[in-house]
């Protein structure tokens, strides 16, 4: 079965949980910038949590399906509708064959993830359906979705069929996940980080600045990384470093002294000193940062980062069990 993008919007791409196992060949992780949001949306739509969905940047997407589908979106503060009916983040909603699902530009944040029951059925390339827009493979022909484009969606799974029956009357389910999970954007976000691999290569003042001052998101930010403007972060030594691995969350500082927070499409290696690493559970907040936004950073221990991640996984497991009653 097919879905058709009447309008593709500013930047819409197919993403799943990313591509692992090929970093040694220089292949980026890719995947949804907020994998947690996509996992939750997939579970609510009756999919496996790893199904491919759409990552929508700055909205403008209008979609139609050839048959009935359950959709669930989460992310920034977007105005999403089925026809003229508003659909709030996190609520499973039934879109009948031929009806239009639309998502307009956000009041807060910049990205949304849309799970469609059945999942988007583009070919798996190197273990993932994610579009690597920089290298030009995966997703829809290795590029963003275009206006008028059709793409395949797999058959509705049994759980989605149950929801389609159940939501025949009210169309939009009353239940939703915890607010933070479906709406992670913040007005004045603080991102938690653990000390960087190369923090010893910066002057003390740079480390203090990073932990206290505000930084502004620069316009040349994308899925590779968020460029930040703020007090110059000076190094204590000017030596060239050998390239070594970097990862989403790594904050590296080029000679300009302006830090770059790397995201999923970042290169696999980098030669700039790494002042910090934003913790995994805060990457969904980072994924909502828009040009001009102000952001702060605060240091935590790696043990705290792990405890928070484990807590989130346990909560997700509990949530998954709690959903069972809706699929019976």
């Amino acid at each position: 079965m097919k879905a058709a993008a009447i309008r593709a919007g500013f930047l819409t791409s197919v993403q799943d949980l990313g591509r692992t196992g090929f970093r040694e060949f220089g292949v980026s992780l890719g995947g949804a910038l907020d994998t947690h949001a996509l996992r939750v949306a997939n579970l609510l739509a009756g999919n496996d949590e790893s199904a491919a969905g759409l990552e929508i940047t700055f909205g403008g997407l209008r979609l139609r399906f050839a048959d009935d589908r359950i959709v669930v979106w989460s992310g920034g503060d977007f105005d999403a509708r089925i026809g003229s009916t508003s659909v709030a983040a996190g609520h499973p909603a039934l879109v009948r064959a031929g009806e239009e699902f639309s998502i307009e530009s956000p009041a807060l944040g910049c990205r949304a993830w849309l799970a469609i029951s059945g999942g988007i059925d583009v070919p798996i390339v190197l273990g993932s359906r994610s579009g690597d827009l920089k290298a030009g493979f995966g997703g829809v022909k290795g590029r963003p979705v275009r206006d008028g484009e059709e793409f395949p969606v797999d058959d509705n799974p049994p759980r989605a069929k149950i929801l389609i029956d159940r939501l025949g009357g009210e169309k939009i389910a009353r239940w939703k996940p915890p607010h933070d999970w479906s709406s992670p954007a913040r007005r004045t976000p603080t991102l938690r980080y653990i000390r960087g691999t190369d923090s010893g290569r910066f002057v003390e003042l740079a480390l203090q600045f990073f932990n206290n001052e505000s930084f502004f998101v620069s316009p040349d930010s994308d899925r590779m990384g968020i460029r930040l403007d703020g007090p110059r972060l000076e190094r204590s030594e000017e030596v060239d470093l050998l390239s070594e691995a970097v990862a989403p969350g790594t904050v590296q500082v080029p000679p300009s002294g302006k830090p770059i927070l790397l995201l999923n499409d970042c290169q696999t290696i980098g030669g700039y000193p790494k002042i910090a690493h934003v913790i995994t559970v805060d990457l969904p907040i980072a994924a909502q940062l828009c040009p001009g936004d102000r952001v702060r950073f605060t240091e935590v221990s790696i043990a705290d980062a792990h405890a928070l991640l484990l807590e989130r996984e346990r909560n997700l497991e509990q949530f998954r069990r709690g959903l069972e009653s809706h699929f019976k």
Partner: protein
Amino acid sequence: MEITPLGDSALLIRVAQNFDDAPGEALNKVLVTKCDLEAAQIPGVVELAPAYTTVALFYDPPRAIDAGAPIENVFGWIEQRIRQALSNAGEIHADRIKTSLVEIPVCYEQEFALDLDEVARHAGLHWREVVDLHCGAEYRVHCVGFTPGFPFLGGLPRKIATPRRDIPRKEIPAGSVAIGGRQTGIYPIKSPGGWNVIGRTPLRLFDPQKDPPALLRAGDRVRFRAITREEFERSTT
């Protein structure tokens, strides 16, 4: 050996302090380390990626915790398992590392060699001498990265080492063979880049439909062979 966190889901294992003094030795250490860690199958490990003096290990903390890692010290638990795996391994035997010798045909003709004149001028050589030197050496892949499949090759004759261009090009064609400082490399896909382009290969360095997707991996040995424009055309059709 130094093991440091690279965020909460990865760590860096530094097996050599310096690369340039003994690149071959550092590279072999890195490859043996990766090989031993693969064999050790530490619970929660997602993947390993070598680069120059380090091996990066990516892990899934909840999976490590399920396998017995204490929540308050997941990093220490994995670190201990890494040290164990590497101490049991004993001496480094270079023959344990599987590497191949790959010949890369390169057309050095003007149309593809955007900066060959500049490299020749910098070296004070005729362009033919630059090509002879480039083809005469044997290289080793020190690292793959920058773009998918991009090999950073060591072993470039010092005479033709050339600093990167002051202003990087916005677009370098796929297959371009280039010199950046003391390294040479090949651009597998169209991308921006600051290296000096001296030729082009008809080979595909990266093909996502293949497994492995890259023609070269860290440790592989490489030689370049000069080909004519006609041979280039024949190989691409």
